[in-house]
């Protein structure tokens, strides 16, 4: 028996050395993670939507750190586990380099929105030509239709040497035409304002050619206005989300959120609701709209940031507004913190699988009350009930993400079909190095399975 011992031991060693228990810890859709994307330079998030085939599209901007580089639009398609599938960079100056109608020269392009449509996407962006003498000072609008691979099918610009235009949103209407909203200092003929500053801008155009069905501006005298979003109601009216520097219906000063409904696009008549916030008796808050969602019940939920104009105790908090399609206010909540010096802002909102509201945005100079760790700006994760309230049940759902030193900001948030939450954020590594970040958390805002 002894003679068999050596080969037996050898086989045993080889067998044992080849054995390892391999747990099933592979990446799965339910896994949480953080991903970074970008080039050497600055990369920032603007918007995030679901693609037509169930992936995630992150819209942003990138600017190389190379000398004389300009800012370009970037579209990233990633799968639900963060793998980068496609990347498309759009440079307006390149798109119009050989166009005899335009000569923009070097442009800085800033993406604003991307919307999924049948067979492709709509993209809108602002751009500024660096050579003001040729093209005029200020922002211009670039919008285009993209195919599934983000190649430009058709493109247009809204440009004039004497005026500026800024885009807020773009949709494809039921009739197949394009509606663009934003702001401009050009007053349209039907605008009754007597002393307009920047007015809210609304135009309907053909996608096949640049036929302008109508363009209109509206707003208030002596103050700036801007339209940040548009959606088509079931009764064919248009809802326009925006902001104005006019005092709200309740008398709140500063910038206030607006919800306008256009019932007759041929006339200048519209219903315009203005909503503002106050905090501890201070009504002079700037209520800047971050983003909005249009619900299945045709309500609109608006998220933004209320910032006080007080020099003594400047505070800022996220706010939530829910408005019915007729303009009725369902609720408005200022998500104020009792922690002194902890300021924050809301930039996007999503409805969770549990019908709660989850917002992302920024915690300014966040200090963790438990660890004592101090941060610069952090990505905000805040979950409320469906009425925008943070009750005791929702306190554990508040969370923050980001670098210790950088100024990080959550720009867009979505609820995935599996109930997990994804956030697109701009991460600041300092020294003009920012990256696009894609975070997938559970519905409690934890990076845990």
């Amino acid at each position: 028996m002894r003679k068999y011992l050596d080969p037996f031991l050898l086989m045993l060693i080889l067998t044992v050395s080849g054995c390892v228990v391999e747990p099933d810890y592979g990446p799965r859709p339910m896994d949480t993670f953080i991903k970074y994307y970008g080039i050497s330079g600055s990369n920032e998030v603007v918007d995030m939507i679901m693609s037509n085939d169930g992936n995630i599209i992150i819209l942003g901007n990138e600017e190389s750190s190379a000398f004389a580089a300009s800012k370009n639009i970037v579209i990233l398609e990633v799968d639900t586990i963060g793998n980068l599938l496609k990347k498309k960079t759009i440079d307006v100056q390149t798109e119009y380099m050989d166009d005899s109608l335009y000569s923009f020269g070097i442009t800085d392009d800033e993406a604003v929105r991307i919307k999924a449509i049948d067979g492709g996407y709509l993209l809108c962006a602002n751009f500024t030509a660096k050579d003001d003498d040729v093209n005029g000072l200020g922002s211009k609008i670039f919008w285009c239709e993209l195919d599934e691979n983000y190649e430009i099918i058709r493109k247009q610009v809204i440009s004039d040497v004497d005026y500026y235009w800024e885009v807020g949103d773009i949709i494809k209407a039921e009739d197949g035409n394009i509606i663009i909203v934003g702001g401009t200092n050009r007053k349209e003929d039907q605008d009754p304002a007597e002393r307009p500053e920047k007015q809210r801008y609304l135009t309907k155009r053909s996608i096949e050619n640049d036929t302008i069905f109508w363009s209109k501006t509206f707003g208030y005298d002596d103050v700036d206005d801007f339209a940040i979003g548009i959606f088509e109601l079931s009764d064919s009216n248009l809802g326009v989300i925006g902001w104005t520097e006019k005092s709200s219906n309740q008398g709140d000063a500063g910038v206030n959120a607006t919800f306008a409904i256009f019932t007759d696009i041929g006339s200048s008549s519209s219903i315009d609701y203005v909503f503002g916030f106050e905090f501890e008796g201070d009504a002079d808050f700037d209520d800047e709209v971050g983003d909005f969602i249009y619900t299945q019940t045709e309500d609109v939920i608006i998220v933004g940031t209320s910032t006080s104009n007080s020099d003594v105790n400047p505070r800022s908090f996220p706010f939530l507004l829910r408005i019915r399609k007729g303009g009725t206010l369902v609720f408005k909540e200022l998500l104020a913190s009792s922690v002194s010096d902890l300021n924050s802002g809301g930039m996007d909102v999503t409805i969770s699988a549990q019908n709660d509201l989850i917002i992302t945005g920024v915690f300014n100079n966040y200090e963790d009350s438990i660890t004592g760790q101090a941060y610069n700006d952090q990505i905000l994760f805040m979950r409320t009930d469906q009425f925008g309230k943070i009750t005791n049940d929702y306190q554990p759902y508040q969370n923050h993400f980001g670098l210790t030193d950088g100024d990080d900001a959550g720009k867009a948030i979505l609820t995935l079909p599996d109930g997990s939450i994804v956030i697109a954020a701009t991460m600041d590594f300092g020294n003009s190095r920012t990256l696009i970040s894609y975070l997938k958390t559970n519905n409690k805002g934890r990076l845990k399975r």
Partner: protein
Amino acid sequence: MGIFRKSLVLGVFVLCSTFFASAQTWTQKLLVAERDYDAGRLVSIVDNIIGGFDKALGEKGYTREEKIRALKLITKVYIFLDDEPKSDEYMIKLLKADKEHKLDAKVDPAELYDLYRKFRSQPIFRIGFRVGVNKSYPNIINTFGTGNTGMVSKIYNGAGEPPQEASVNGGAGTGFFINATVDRYLDWGLEVGLGLEFRNSQYSVDNFITYGDSIQVNGVNEAAQFAVLSTMVTHQQSFFRIPLLLRYNFKYDPGKETFKKIEDNVKDRFIPYIAIGASYDYLLDAKYLKGNRIGGTEYKFNADLSLKELDLIAHTNWSVFASLGLKMRVRTHFLTFEAKFNKALLNYINPDNRWSNNPLSTYDLAFVEDDFSLDMLSFSLGYTYSIYNPQKLKQFR
């Protein structure tokens, strides 16, 4: 000659005999006794030489070698006097005085061999001490990363090609360990051992966030990955381990049946061996020893962060190992040289907290741990001390 004269002569003889006898050293007495044994005069041998064991004699008593000879002689005497209790007693004394005493077939009688085999002459156990160096070999189970993991992999312990515009900064991943084992000989050259070990190890990871672009190679554009952000972390971990091993010694079998084996196999100066085993590993601590980032501003790293307290690392693990070694006999003890490969069976990382409980690395370093088993190649130098307790084997009592 009268009776008086006879008495006088006898008295002088006795006095002289006593004088010369008392003047003999214990060395001489032992030689005389050995001659008496050879001549078959067994009766007074024990009485003549037993006094040499008296410790009070100091240097005047037996030397170590003489003591062994004397004990062996007394044992043989009692064998042939058929005094079994006494022969057993002195066999034990002999084995205590000379561990693993070797019999000599040329001079030692078969009866002594027969008695010898009835006693436990080998160590009841051996205690081994080893110190050594190790090098980690993280064995990736699943890849996770904050970058484009499908395009660019992390680089462990400095071995790999970085993407464009990046370099590799990680170290080799070396550490050290110290252990002690208690070994017990079984049979057929097999030993079983149980030990305690403190192991300090490291691994380094270079991590890259990249973007795809093209690079000209010989005038042709080729796709390449360019680094946007490069980070490097050196991860240090300390384990308390309890290894259980089975060792097979080549050319070593003290045996218990044959004389040949006793003579031939026990005296080998060099004994090669192989061993296999398993270990329970308990994490004492883990931390990032170094961490830096290239890209953005300088990153200030907190090296005091305990990854164990953050529950980022699995607190316990199991591993198997195989080793190849050489024992060099130093009297009845050994110097050992050993190479060992240790393969962890379970994930080193706690996957539940991979993303959530590492506030510094996940964000500031854009780094997240893979799932991997932390395998280890080690080399050690050791000393094995043999512990004896000679006794008559149970079956012969």
